[in-house]
C-alpha cells in the first residue's frame, strides 16, 4: 500500500509541470494583456502601456517569464492578483469555502438521489420507473448547465418565487465569516432565519451543479447493481433466509458501490468545471466566478495559480478515492 502511494505521488510531478505549462500558455494565447484591460479599451498610450508591462515583467521573452513563474512557485509563492494586489492564496482561501459548500450540496444531492434511483431502477428492471429514470438521466446528462440553470431560475425564482435568484445570503442578514461555510456560519450567528435563507440560496445552484453527476451516478449504480444481483453470493445471501432489504443493501449494494465510488471521484473534476458556470449564473461568490472574472481581466497570476490549485484539488480527491476504494474492496487492500 505504501509503495502504491509513493508511486502515485511520483506520477504527480510531470502532471504538475504539465498543468503550469498549459495554464501559462493558454492565458497568454487569449488576445489582449492585463494592462490593456486595466486601461480601458478606448485609448492606450503606447508609452504608458510599455512602462506598465515592464513593471509587471511581461515584456520579457515568454520562456523567461515561465522560468520566473516556476521559480516563484518553487519558493512557495503564488504571487498576487494584478487587479486587487492581494495574494492569490488569500483570495483562494477566502472564496474556496463557498465553492466547497456548493460542491458538497451538489454531491449530496447527486449521491442521495443517484444511488436511490439507480438502485430502484435495477431492482425494478424493465419497469416504467426504470425506463423513466434512465430517460431522465440521459436528458440530465446532455443538458447544458447554463441553460438548465436559467430555466430553473425562471421557474422557481421568477415565476414561483420559492428561491432567491442569486447570491449566498440575503442582504438583511449580517453574518460574520467564521468558517466560510454559509450554512455553518449562519447557525453560529445569532441571526434568526439566516440559516434557512442560506439553505434556500444553496438549493437551486446545488441542483443545477448536481444534475450531471446525478445522471452519471444513477446510471452507474443501476448497471453495477444489475451485475451484482446476478452474482452467486447474492443467491447465497438469499439462501441464508435474510430479508430482501438486507440482501440488497448489505450484500449487493456494498459490492455495487465499488465502481460507483470511482465515478464519484471522477465527478469531482466535472463538478469543479461545472462550478465555473453555475457560480456565474447564480452570482455565487466562489472560485469559479473568481476565475472567470480573472480571465476577463487577464489577471495572469490569478488564472495560472487559481487553476493550479483547483487541479491539485482534483488530484487530491482522486487520490483519496483510490484509498477509499481499498477500504471498500478488501481485494485491493491486500494487494501489494
Amino acid at each position, binding site marked *: 500500500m505504501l509503495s502504491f502511494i509513493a508511486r502515485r505521488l511520483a506520477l504527480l510531478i510531470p502532471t504538475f509541470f504539465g498543468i503550469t505549462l498549459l495554464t501559462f500558455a493558454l492565458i497568454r494565447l487569449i488576445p489582449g494583456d492585463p494592462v490593456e484591460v486595466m486601461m480601458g479599451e478606448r485609448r492606450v498610450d503606447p508609452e504608458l502601456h510599455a512602462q506598465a508591462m515592464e513593471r509587471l515583467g511581461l515584456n520579457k521573452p515568454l520562456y523567461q517569464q515561465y522560468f520566473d513563474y516556476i521559480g516563484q512557485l518553487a519558493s512557495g509563492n503564488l504571487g498576487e492578483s494584478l487587479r486587487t494586489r492581494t495574494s492569490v492564496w488569500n483570495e483562494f482561501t477566502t472564496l474556496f469555502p463557498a465553492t466547497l459548500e456548493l460542491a458538497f450540496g451538489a454531491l449530496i444531492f447527486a449521491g442521495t438521489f443517484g444511488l436511490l434511483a439507480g438502485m430502484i431502477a435495477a431492482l425494478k428492471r424493465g419497469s416504467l420507473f426504470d425506463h423513466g429514470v434512465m430517460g431522465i438521466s440521459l436528458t440530465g446528462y446532455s443538458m447544458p448547465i447554463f441553460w438548465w440553470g436559467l430555466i430553473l431560475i425562471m421557474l422557481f425564482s421568477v415565476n414561483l418565487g420559492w428561491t432567491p435568484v442569486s447570491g449566498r445570503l440575503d442582504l438583511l442578514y449580517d453574518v460574520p465569516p467564521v468558517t466560510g461555510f454559509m450554512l455553518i456560519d449562519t447557525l453560529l450567528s445569532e441571526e434568526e432565519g439566516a440559516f434557512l435563507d442560506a439553505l434556500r440560496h444553496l438549493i437551486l445552484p446545488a441542483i443545477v451543479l448536481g444534475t450531471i453527476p446525478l445522471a452519471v451516478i444513477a446510471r452507474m449504480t443501476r448497471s453495477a447493481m444489475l451485475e451484482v444481483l446476478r452474482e452467486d*453470493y447474492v443467491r*447465497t445471501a438469499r439462501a441464508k433466509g435474510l430479508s430482501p432489504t438486507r440482501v440488497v443493501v448489505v450484500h449487493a449494494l456494498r459490492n455495487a458501490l465499488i465502481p460507483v465510488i470511482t465515478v464519484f471521484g471522477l465527478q469531482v473534476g466535472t463538478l469543479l468545471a461545472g462550478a465555473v458556470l453555475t457560480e456565474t449564473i447564480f452570482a455565487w461568490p466562489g472560485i469559479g466566478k473568481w476565475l472567470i472574472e480573472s480571465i476577463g481581466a487577464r489577471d495572469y497570476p490569478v488564472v495560472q495559480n487559481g487553476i493550479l490549485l483547483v487541479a491539485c484539488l482534483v488530484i487530491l480527491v482522486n487520490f483519496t478515492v483510490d484509498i477509499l476504494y481499498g477500504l471498500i474492496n478488501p481485494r485491493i487492500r*491486500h494487494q501489494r
Partner: protein
Amino acid sequence: MSLLDIHNLNVRFGGRDAPPVVEGLDLSIDAGEVLAIVGESGSGKSVTMMALMGLIDHPGIVTADQMQFLGHDLLTIRGRKRRQLIGKDMAMVFQDPMTALNPAYTVGYQIEEVLRQHLNLKGSAARKRALELLERVEIPAAESRLDAYPHQLSGGMSQRVAIAMAIAGEPRLLIADEPTTALDVTIQAQIMDLLLALQRDQGMALILITHDLAVVAETARDVCVMYAGQAVEKGHIPTLFDAPAHPYTEALLAAIPEQGQGERLATLPGIVPGRYDRPTGCLLAPRCPYVQNRCQKRPALEPYDRGAVRCFFPRNMAPGEAPSVSAEHRLEVGGHHYAH
C-alpha cells in the same frame, strides 16, 4: 411421515403455458437419509432445488400438488415465514465456492450473519459459535480464518466455509448442489467425506446433486435419475447400479471410466433437449439406442419392486419383474410440439 414430500412439482419460466423446466417430479426424503439426484447438465436438478428453497424469481412459476417440509406447506408459506425456514431448517451448499461467498465481508461475519438471523446469537457468543463451526468443518487455524476474506482462501477452504454457513442453523435438510464439481480432484473426496460425516453426526437429511456416479455409489441409498426435467428412474444402491432399468441410467453408468480398461468410453450421442426442443414422445427417444415405435408416446413413471422407471422397454429386468408402463396422461392440446 417424510421430512420432505413433493408431488408433481412443475417449474416454468415465462408464463403458465411455457414448457416446464421441471415436469411432474415427485421427491421424498426421510429424516437422516441421503438422496442422490443424478443427471446431466440441463436436466433440471438445480432448478428443482432452487424451487425447494423458494429462490425461483419472477418470471419463474413453481406449481405442485403437494410440497411439505417439516410439517409446513411450502406452497402457501411466503415471505418472513418462508425465510425463517431456509438457511435454518433447510440449507444449501452451492457449486462454485469461489463465487458463493461475498468478497466484501470476512468469513466470520458471513457465518455470524446466519447465527444472528436464525438463532439470535450476537457479539462474542456468535463469534465463539462461528469459531466452533469452522473447527467443525475442519479448517486449520480456524481462529485466524474468522477475519480472513474469501479471496484469501482456496477453493476447498471456501467450500468448507460455505458448509459451515449452511450447517450454522442446524438444518434438518441440507441440499448440496454439486458441492465438489468446481474443486480439485484431491479436495473433492475430502469435502464429500466431510459432508457425509456431518450428515451422520447431526442426523440431518442430505440431498446430494451430482453427476458423479462414483460419489453416488459410495454415499447414497436412494437415487433419482433426472433427464430433461423429469425423473426417469428411481431406485436404491446398489441394485440400481447393478441392473439399471432405464436406458439413460445404463448409458450414464457406461460412461464411468474404469481403471485398467483401455477401451473407448460409451457415450450417448446428442445433448439434453432444451425446453423448447423437447420431443412429444419419450424425451430420450432421439438419443436412445433401443428406440421403437411406441416411444413416440411419452411413458409415465411406473413403480415396480426395485423402484420406478419411465420407459416402455426397461432394461435388465428379471422375468416377470418388468412393470407395464403406460403412456402418460398429458394435458397438452393435440400433442403440441414446442419448437422454435
